[in-house]
């Protein structure tokens, strides 16, 4: 096909993207691979039109090819800096792939769409895309590869950071970090660095990596993220000035990782965290004492911080302006309103759905051939316990020789 580049153009013109989707897909992918730069606008238009009209049943026959076409679209749009142009078409592409599996399957197009959302600064739309629960992967039906999953987690986490949904960002970054791996890759390292900064903003400390993190990843991360570990140690001192000095002196490093903005957010989180700690110790406090305790310039600045924390639901308090005092309070929510009952119900429904899904996965694994073979092999060893020792002994002999 590569040799007949010129004829591809005319060939595509004679095919119908809706009726002959499969053929159109192959020819379009080849055409897009080698079309000269001047035709890129036309190629982008053809790809977008194809995605809109293609038949999902035919696309399902060649999912890797469709993934390849979507990656080409993403690359073309990035080279043309027309990021927003691809967001809706890739959304359609996700829908078409999911039509043949389910709305809970991850597709290669998810990562492409999220990347364009980030570049186009369309965080709200990215957030909407992330709202769909992802509970399944099927590389055969979707053409998904490991890299697509890692990128979904990394870009998704970054979008959540932009939306200030820090816990969700941490969860996605953690999926990337703990994903099974034979070696440390750049995406995992980048995810870990962002995870570290968001962890400081949300929890004031780095969370230890879970037990199921691949050993090679754990060792690799220690080596290449020293700046971030140093930042975490300084954070524990709650000294905003010291923290700012560190970030400024390592500006180039954070900038190279595209994490400078996030590092500044870490510094900015210190006064709020300090005020939060005061609420654990005091019932009432004067505004001037609060200001000096947290190294703010004036009681007026303290009031501003308090108001923004109350507005964001981070704390409950009342300011007595006349006395210049603030009284810290507990959450007045008594969990006895109909609105709260609706929230609890929604959580229960989600948990029920998740537990049904988990039961299904458990059944699938229990009847999986590979799993059953391994379990039987281990059971055989355990049943004949004495034989286990004999089996190991000869091996040990060879090891020492």
């Amino acid at each position, binding site marked *: 096909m590569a040799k007949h580049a010129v004829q591809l153009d005319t060939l595509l013109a004679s095919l119908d993207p809706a009726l002959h989707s499969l053929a159109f897909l192959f020819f379009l992918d080849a055409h897009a691979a080698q079309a000269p730069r001047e035709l890129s*606008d036309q190629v*982008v*238009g053809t790809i*977008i039109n194809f995605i809109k009209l293609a038949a999902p049943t035919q696309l399902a026959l060649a999912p890797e090819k469709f993934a390849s076409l979507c990656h080409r679209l993403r690359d073309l749009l990035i080279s043309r800096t*027309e990021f*927003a*142009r*691809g*967001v*809706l*078409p890739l959304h359609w592409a996700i829908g078409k792939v999911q039509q043949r599996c389910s709305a809970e399957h991850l597709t290669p197009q998810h990562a492409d769409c999220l990347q364009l959302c980030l570049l*186009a*600064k*369309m*965080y*709200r*739309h990215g957030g909407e895309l992330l709202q769909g629960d992802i509970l399944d992967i099927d590389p055969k039906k979707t053409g998904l590869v490991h890299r697509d999953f890692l990128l979904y987690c990394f870009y998704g986490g970054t979008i959540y950071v*932009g*939306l*200030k949904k820090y816990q969700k960002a941490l969860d996605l970054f953690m999926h990337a970090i703990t994903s099974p791996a034979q070696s440390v890759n750049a995406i995992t390292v980048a995810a870990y660095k962002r995870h570290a900064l968001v962890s400081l903003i949300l929890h004031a400390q780095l969370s230890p990596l879970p037990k199921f993190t691949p050993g090679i990843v754990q060792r690799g991360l220690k080596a290449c993220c020293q700046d971030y570990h140093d930042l975490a140690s300084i954070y524990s001192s709650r000294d905003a000035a010291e923290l700012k000095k560190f970030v400024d002196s390592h500006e180039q490093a954070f900038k190279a990782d595209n994490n400078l903005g996030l590092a500044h957010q870490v510094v900015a989180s210190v006064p709020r965290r300090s005020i939060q700690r005061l609420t654990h110790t005091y019932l009432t406090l004067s505004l001037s004492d609060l200001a000096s305790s947290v190294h703010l310039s004036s009681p007026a600045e303290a009031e*501003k911080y*308090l*108001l*923004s924390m*109350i*507005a964001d639901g981070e704390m*409950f*308090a*009342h*300011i*007595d*302006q*006349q*006395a210049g005092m603030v*009284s810290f309070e507990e959450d007045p929510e008594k969990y006895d*309103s*109909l609105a709260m*009952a609706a929230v609890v*119900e929604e959580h*229960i429904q989600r948990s*029920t759905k998740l*537990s049904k899904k988990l039961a299904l996965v458990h059944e699938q694994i229990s009847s999986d051939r590979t799993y059953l073979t391994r379990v039987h092999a281990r059971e055989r060893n355990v049943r004949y316990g004495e034989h286990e020792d004999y089996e190991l002994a000869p091996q040990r002999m060879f090891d020492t020789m």
Partner: protein
Amino acid sequence: MSPITQESVHAAVAAKEFSRIAEICGRLELEAAASGAPPLPAAIDSLHLLGLLHDGDLNEARFLWKRIPASVKEGDAELEATWRVGQAMWRRDSQGVHEALKAFDWSPAVEPMVAAVADRYTHTMIQLLARSFSTISPSHAATFLGLTTQEALPFLEAKGWKQDAATDMLSPPVVQGGKGGEAEEELRQLAQVKRLTEYVFNLEH
């Protein structure tokens, strides 16, 4: 779904569906970008920005401002004035917000949205003051509401705030927990019994 056009946006403003403006403009932006059309006019961007400010989505408002091409931003005084409102909201500078809302001579297409943003902002500020202050001076409260001290006093008293005769300080009204009407309650209770039965069934199996 029927295609979104610029007319859909103006129609929604005319119908006073202010909470839907951000969503409609967002969809219009995506569809226009996908079709390779030229950038949207500044009037639509202003309405989009105001829609987001109305919903309190300051994050997306900031990102929208960054997305709008420089060619559209620099030419339009109204769009820049809209952004000044957003900047003041981002900095949590209430006085600045009210000043920015009043400072510009808004066009007829945009004016109803600006009024809606002003109303919603004042309402949010009053609720914040009630949650945050046990006593507040009328002049301080006035800065949050974009009023003069003389205007603030009757305005808040009409909303249930009480003024202490000795100190002149205002106190917020005590909030009563709101519950739905009785008939609504019964219906909800029946539905809840049904749901509880389902949960117990699920837990048993």
